[in-house]
């Protein structure tokens, strides 16, 4: 136990401020954001992540968003196990034919008002997989999408920035 406490003490707080330009953007939309989050989502934003066919690269960065450096919970953002509790769906991958039904059901199970954010190049335009017998391409081919975060994979900072922009819209 002492070792654990010692390690916690030694580690301290590693959470970093976001890059200056991102911080500024957040400050600018901050007031508006707070108001919207309070009105729409009762002060916190709950996200359900849906892998609709990704290579799992985007998942690595979504995980990283939760690590101590980016610590997305400081903004009131947290991930939920069920779409029933979600305000936002973060959807990755081109939509595989085999995930189409599950994605539509997850969308239907998410209460209104909801925001859908397509994460990663494949989610935005089909990426290298494109459209084929097995892939339906971009997310918006299957469910309505409110915002896009391109990148292969997008960095944790671009993810946070994209999420803020999506709420501010």
């Amino acid at each position: 136990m002492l070792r654990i406490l010692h390690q916690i003490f030694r580690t301290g707080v590693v959470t970093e401020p976001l890059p200056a330009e991102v911080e500024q953007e957040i400050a600018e939309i901050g007031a508006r954001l707070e108001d919207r989050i309070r009105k729409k989502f009762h002060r916190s934003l709950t996200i359900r992540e849906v892998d609709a066919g990704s290579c799992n690269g985007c998942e690595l960065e979504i995980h990283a968003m939760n690590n101590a450096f980016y610590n997305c919970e400081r903004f009131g953002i947290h991930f939920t196990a069920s779409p029933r509790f979600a305000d936002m769906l973060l959807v990755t991958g081109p939509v595989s034919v085999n995930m189409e039904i599950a994605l539509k059901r997850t969308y239907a199970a998410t209460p209104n008002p909801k925001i859908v954010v397509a994460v990663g190049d494949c989610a935005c335009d089909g990426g290298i997989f494109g459209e084929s017998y097995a892939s339906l391409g971009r997310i918006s081919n299957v469910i309505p999408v409110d915002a896009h975060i391109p990148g292969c994979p997008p960095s944790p900072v671009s993810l946070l920035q994209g999420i803020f922009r999506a709420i501010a819209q």
Partner: protein
Amino acid sequence: MNALHERLVAQLGEAAMQLEDLRPADVPLLLVPREQFNEAARTMKYQEARLVAEWASDETLLAGGYGIYACFSKGSDFLVVKCVAPEDDPAFPTITRKYAAAYRFERQMHSLMGVTPLGSPDLRPWIKFEDWPEDAWPLRKTFDSRTRMPRVPGDYRWIRAEGEGVYEIPVGPVHAGIIEPGHFRFQAMGEEILNLEERLGYVHKGIEKRFEALSWEDGARLAGRVSGDTTVAHSCCYCQAVESMAECTPPERALWLRAIMLERERIANHLGDIGAICNDVAFAFLFFQCNILKEQIVRTNFQLFQQRFLKDKIVPGGVTVDLSDEGIDCMLRELEEFSKKFEQLIVIYDNNASLEDRVRETGIFSMEKAKDLGTVGIVARASGLDLDIRLQRPAAPYDIIVPRVSVQQAGDVNARVWVRIDEIRESVRLLREMLYNLPTGEICAEFIPPLSQASGLAFVEGWRGEIMYWVQAGKAGEVNRCMVRDPSSLNWLGLEQSIHGNIVPDFPVCNKSFNQSYSGNDL
């Protein structure tokens, strides 16, 4: 002539004919009559060889018919056996009765290529879902990849358990965490799991078919997206297969840089896994600590290679990014610092009784089962199997800088954690050696696309385990077929077997200790 080759020739006599079109030349390719395909498998089984992969290739535009291939290995010996199923009778004798792992390979061949394994006990669709038309065989040349797949009514036959008090838990495809989709069907009684059946294929994106529409060079980008967390190992393995077929030798420095990236990928992913395993038994402290170290590793990647996960840095002929002398110093300093911090965490892992209570004797996967199912990688090494392609088929620089392989006997979650811990330590040592001795010179050789009808094969020890690629050029030198075998294709079978008798709440930690790829399996 290697021992497997010798044995097969002794058994089948002149019926086994050696073909010359596979590279590298030290892996023999033997053509056997179709009726003797399972005989060949039986011979291999008696030799205690493991099944590495089984796959089919549409060769109707080449020599004709469908090529049915199986790759076997024992120690450092590898052998590929081929038979041909004619177009008007696309069938071959199953080898599932000799090799249990073949049943998924064969279901996949049956589903996607339309070749029937005669005598197979299980012909349910695999990867392809029951709502696809039965005669849609996407890997056939006659199938247009742009076909919009119509949905037809169909049912999947699940394995059932009956009796008083037996109930069923369906999980997925959309899981609770930030993970890939798949479906698990449990039969349980009280808390105890009687059986687990996996149903995968949700993230099938038609990758193997997609390769056929790309150039050899673009294929490396696609290989880097077969399983995003293994981008280095997959693109490396693809490039090795293509290079061996095209007889292109990358410069020494390029091979060493590839190995440096491979070891960095191993460290980053193992850290993530150790943290996630701890998190699944509610020890969030180590989860956050391990992820701090992981983030620092990927940040150094970004600093030195401009990409956090080293994506698209490996191309046919070499690598696209060099490491400066300052870069080498920077990485050495990073490793110094990293080791110190990592060891502090390991002491905590090792001394925590409540953690130990959850991971010890949980999800035991016996050596016998691991051997039977042809398990590879960390899972195999945690169950007592001494398998590591860096030793069995060492490519430069592993021929000079030899890894010490960690083998654990217990086969439980704890053993799978310790294999990862040891491998991180070993990767740090290998990285140091590589950085001290990195040869000078070019980082990329000219790549001349392969000749027509040649085929190439390669193995790379990714962080999960042995990856295999088999590529085949068509008549005009285009990609006729690219077969990908992620370690997950074999190791998912192990998870089903390790779970019997465990309690339902322990499934997440068992699953995490295997941490297999869905995307790499579904393709």
